[in-house]
């Protein structure tokens, strides 16, 4: 914690007086670097590993035989290749959707129960956030490599691209309104252009992330859910096809980027 408070102090100094010339985003970047070694996401990774190995559900089986796309039980590198097509489910799936699939089909947990708590509140922690932290951390340092080798993966990419430009709601917003041009920002927040490879890599490889402002790890599906909230759309359903299509589009655009998730964000 002392490292956190030193970093917070450093941030205050950066934002005052003579240091004002330095942009706020540079200050935040330095703050991130200073506490990166002490990312609280590590607690979620450890808890997620415990949950992964626990015998759970009516079948009293762990998730250790869950096939994340590289064979049963193979976790290292799996996140770097998701979303992908799974023959057993005949569906393109992202990480969260696949975890739900394994809970249902391997452990015998009811689908509604497996999906009911994807985003934690301060009173109600989420196993999903911990599991996602564990699995993604096992791909840290590896390069994003979404192959789109199956026709259904290519279809999802194309459909996801269309969704990215879909304008709707009372405000006419699309994902592209904020994330379709270089070097834009909302207030002081820099916005990645998710159609530009460099920005897409930087953004995608740092999700999921421990959000300091929320005190928890947020998953990529949460990121999409919260973007749509701000777009004034209705609520994106967890593990829905639209979430997977958009994730396929964004993950593929980030190919070649080195995974650094779970990262640390404001």
């Amino acid at each position, binding site marked *: 914690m002392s490292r956190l408070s030193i970093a917070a102090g450093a941030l205050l100094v950066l934002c005052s007086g003579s240091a004002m010339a330095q942009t706020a985003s540079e200050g935040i970047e330095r703050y991130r670097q200073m506490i990166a070694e002490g990312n609280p996401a590590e607690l979620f990774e450890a808890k997620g590993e415990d949950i992964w190995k626990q015998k759970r559900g009516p079948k009293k089986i762990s998730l250790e035989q869950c096939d994340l796309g590289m064979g049963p039980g193979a976790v290292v590198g799996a996140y770097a290749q998701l979303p992908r097509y799974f023959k057993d489910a005949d569906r393109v799936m992202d990480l969260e959707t696949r975890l739900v699939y394994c809970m249902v089909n391997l452990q015998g947990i009811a689908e509604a129960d497996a999906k009911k708590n994807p985003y934690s509140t301060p009173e109600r922690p989420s196993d999903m956030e911990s599991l996602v932290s564990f699995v993604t951390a096992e791909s840290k340092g590896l390069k994003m490599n979404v192959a789109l080798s199956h026709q259904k993966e290519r*279809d999802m990419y194309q459909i996801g691209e269309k*969704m990215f430009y879909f*304008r709707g*709601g*009372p405000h006419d917003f699309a994902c592209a309104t904020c994330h379709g041009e270089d070097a834009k920002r909302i207030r002081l927040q820099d916005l990645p252009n998710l159609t530009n490879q460099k920005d897409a890599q930087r953004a995608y490889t740092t999700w999921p992330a421990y959000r300091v402002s929320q005190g928890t790890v947020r998953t990529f599906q949460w990121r999409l859910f919260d973007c749509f*909230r701000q777009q004034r*759309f209705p*609520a994106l*359903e967890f593990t*829905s096809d639209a979430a997977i299509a958009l994730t396929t589009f964004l993950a593929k655009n980030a190919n070649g980027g080195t995974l650094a998730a779970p990262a640390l964000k404001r």
Partner: protein
Amino acid sequence: MSIKSVTFLVIPAATLLLTACVTSLSEDDAQQRAISMMKSSFKAEGQASLDRLNQDNVQTTCSKYRPGEAIPKEVADKIEKAQFASIQYPAKLMGDWKAGERVAQIGTGFQFSDGPTAPVGANCYACHRMSKDEISYGTIGPSLYQFGKLRGTSQPIQQYTYGKIYNSNAFSACSSMPRFGHSKILTEAQMADLTALLLDPASPVNQ
């Protein structure tokens, strides 16, 4: 059949087959599948009902273009003409710039997380530089600093300013800016207050 004519038949067939292996959806198919997939992937929450996914003509057309991409002239003309016709001007176009400044700062309204009594703002600063003192501004839209100082407060300028807030697409087809009056986001009084914020010589925008 000669060898030559067989070759002529086989090569195009093989090319067709190869193309089929990496086939992609047509633009229309991808768009239709995206729309139907979205309709089955969202649920109504709070004030955000599913009809928000039903696009009007402007939204449908503008979804075909990237932000900043030039819209073909005939497409833009058609949108601008139809959207311009929908603008309703109040008797008094300029309200109170101080009230306008509050509306420009507020970022809530219409999100499913906003309660029914949450204030509805225009959130101008999210995208525009407006004044010298507010340094927390975004850059999706152009700077509006000194908007009125550069243009004056003549009746046509007041009408243009109010009209642009009411329906941005009447002047710039597929603008990223919400159609605040057309889509009933802001009240007449709020839009008049914003017009004053932009035009009143006493407003911080014009200092």
